[in-house]
């Protein structure tokens, strides 16, 4: 039976119409995966000595333990945003003589072999080996390692459970911030407290059985929940909630673009697939906080460009790169309706442009890190408006992959994968390189001005660009119609 499932998975992967297109991206992801594994492996091996050197009076294992709370919470958040839960199109299997519990077990087991679960091991295993060679108690370390593996698996299944629930994500973020602050102000050492718990596991390894119980419990809950959802009405009932349509009539001012823009806003709010990119916006806006507080980046001004482009352009990138695939479900209708293609593209452009300006305004508090930062962000905004919007619209002509917005599959909560981050790279590398080069050769002001001027040139040529892009879309029309009909 399992081999049947595996064969189906294999065929699904290789026979999907997007396969040949995204093979490049898949290879890139593969390399990224290797890179991360390599990093984790190196850190895993070196961590003991690094910690020993930095904090000679503390025990490396205890130090690692005291950080585990952050690691686990961050892992959860990361998975929430990035991990694709194993989707198997089970509908056709339901009427076949396969026990439903078997299908569910397979889905769950498959999820526990995900890359996200294996990645952590590349740190924990070598770290444990090093600890053992350094004379730590063998049984204790094995118990500790087992606990780590069990926790990773538990996180995996926990993620499965919370996937429908954004308030859990908010809770986790709050926990992370809260934990940091109470530790920072020395009120209570929550991470340390949890770390003590892990120290205890090392002392009496039998405690790792607790985590085993937790894992089994989570698995059972998952199993029960999914087992109940393997029904058609369970898949459907979730959808038929009463809806309230917001009044978007204020958009009428936008004239003949209004109907499209209204639709796009509804598209973003009403589909699971697009809702997750709204979360990406929040992430993108705060992205600078990863870099600016860190003195290491203080002299690396090209980082400002990166953050500027990224934080003002998250919606541009997340939404833009799937134009026109967002509309793939009803592309035929659009193509036989009475409007100019340019008007359609213009409405997409307008949404992106408005979002870029709005995100810049929301990012003004970055001035806290110096006027230079805000200046570069401003230049980056202009660059986004003038260059990246057009680049991404042009990139859209290569979209050959249907997006199923009304995917009702209960297991497909997040369509966003790592792929979309990769496509963003060329949008950012170029301005960073130009800025970095001129900044190094001439100076900061000229470099900033260059980025802005490039943007202004793009804005000035907007009409010409749009005409050319529209032409490209029209020539690609039939290919897109054909491709969007294919189910992935």
């Amino acid at each position: 039976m399992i081999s049947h499932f595996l064969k189906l998975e294999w065929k699904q992967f290789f026979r999907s119409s997007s396969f040949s297109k995204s093979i490049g991206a898949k290879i890139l992801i593969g390399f990224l995966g290797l890179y991360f594994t390599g990093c984790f492996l190196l850190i895993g091996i070196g961590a003991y000595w690094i910690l020993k050197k930095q904090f000679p009076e503390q025990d490396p294992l205890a130090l690692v333990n005291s950080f585990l709370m952050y690691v686990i919470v961050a892992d959860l958040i990361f998975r929430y945003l990035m991990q694709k839960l194993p989707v198997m199109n089970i509908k056709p299997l339901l009427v076949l003589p396969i026990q439903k519990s078997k299908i569910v077990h397979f889905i769950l087991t498959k999820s526990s072999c995900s890359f996200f679960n294996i990645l952590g091991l590349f740190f924990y295993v070598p770290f444990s080996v090093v600890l053992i060679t350094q004379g730590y108690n063998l049984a204790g370390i094995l118990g500790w390692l087992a606990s780590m593996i069990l926790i990773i698996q538990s996180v995996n299944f926990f993620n499965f459970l919370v996937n429908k629930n954004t308030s859990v994500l908010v809770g986790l973020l709050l926990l992370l911030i809260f934990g940091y602050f109470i530790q920072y102000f020395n009120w209570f050492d929550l991470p340390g407290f949890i770390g003590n718990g892990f120290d205890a596991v090392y002392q009496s390894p039998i405690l790792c059985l607790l985590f085993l119980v937790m894992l089994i419990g989570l698995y059972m809950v998952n199993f029960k929940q999914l087992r109940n959802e393997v029904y058609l009405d369970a898949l459907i009932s979730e959808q038929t909630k009463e809806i309230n349509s917001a009044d978007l009539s204020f958009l009428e001012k936008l004239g003949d673009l209004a109907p499209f823009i209204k639709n796009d806003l509804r598209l973003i709010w009403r589909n699971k697939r697009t809702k997750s990119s709204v979360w990406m916006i929040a992430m993108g806006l705060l992205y600078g906080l990863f870099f600016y507080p860190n003195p290491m980046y203080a002299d690396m001004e090209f980082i400002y460009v990166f953050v500027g482009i990224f934080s003002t352009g998250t919606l541009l990138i997340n939404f833009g790169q799937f134009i026109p695939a967002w509309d793939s479900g009803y592309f035929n209708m659009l193509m036989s309706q009475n409007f100019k293609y340019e008007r359609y593209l213009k409405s997409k452009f307008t949404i992106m442009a408005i979002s870029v300006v709005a995100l810049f305004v929301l990012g003004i508090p970055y001035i806290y890190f110096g006027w230079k930062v805000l200046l570069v962000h401003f230049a980056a905004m202009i660059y986004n408006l003038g260059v990246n919007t057009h680049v991404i619209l042009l990139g859209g002509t290569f979209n050959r992959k249907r997006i199923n917005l009304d995917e009702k599959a209960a297991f497909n909560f997040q369509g966003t994968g790592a792929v979309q981050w990769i496509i963003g790279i060329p949008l950012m590398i170029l301005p960073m390189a130009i800025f970095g080069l001129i900044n190094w050769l001439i100076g900061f002001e000229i470099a900033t001005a260059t980025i802005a001027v490039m943007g202004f040139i793009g804005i000035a040529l907007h009409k010409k660009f749009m005409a050319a892009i529209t032409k490209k879309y029209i020539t690609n029309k039939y290919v897109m119609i054909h491709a969007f009909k294919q189910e992935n």
Partner: protein
Amino acid sequence: MIETTQLSKKYGKVEVLNIASLEIPTGQSFGLVGNNGAGKTTYFNMLLDLIRPTTGSITNHDIVVNQSEAWKNFTGSFIDESFLIGYLTPDEYFDFIGDLRGMNKADVKLFLTQFGEFFNEEVLGKKKYLRDLSKGNQKKVGIVAAIMGNPQVIVLDEPFANLDPTTQIRLKKLLKTLTTDKDVTVLVSSHDLSHVTEVCERIVVLDKGLVVKDITTSRETLKELESYFAV
């Protein structure tokens, strides 16, 4: 007038459609019948410029459909559910199509009042997305959207499929009034021979991409068709 000349469509070496000549005069109600794979939907898709012909062309009111887009102004169509925007409510969808067809909100409202019976109070004003409607109700929305904005040409692929008997009868009435009251050309395809013979003045039978029969509907037509398809 819709003129088809030397139209063919090939996928690789397989020819799925080949119509040497077909003229549909303005105001005619035209029916297309044929078994699966006969080329009905392919023909409609080419008429709507969603597929390119391998040779030949279709001219819709003097406009070659794959050269100019002007035909979109006066052509309404509904091929399948992929013409619907799943995340809109029916009312929002009608507003959207109305916008594209140059109707304001009041026009749309007025237009929709005549379809209260057709929708059977299951569609309008209900807070449901189109994707959550039943197949039949989705079809109703698509058909009504296709006749918004007074199109001169209406293309409906399999309009009777999935509809309940009452709605089928109402739809037949609707299609008849469209062609008698106005100068509207209606093109429908169907597997249901009795519906087509009731609605259409002229019926063309396609088989493996070729026109095999071109009948002006009379009392004997249904029998003729039934004996043709009974193999």
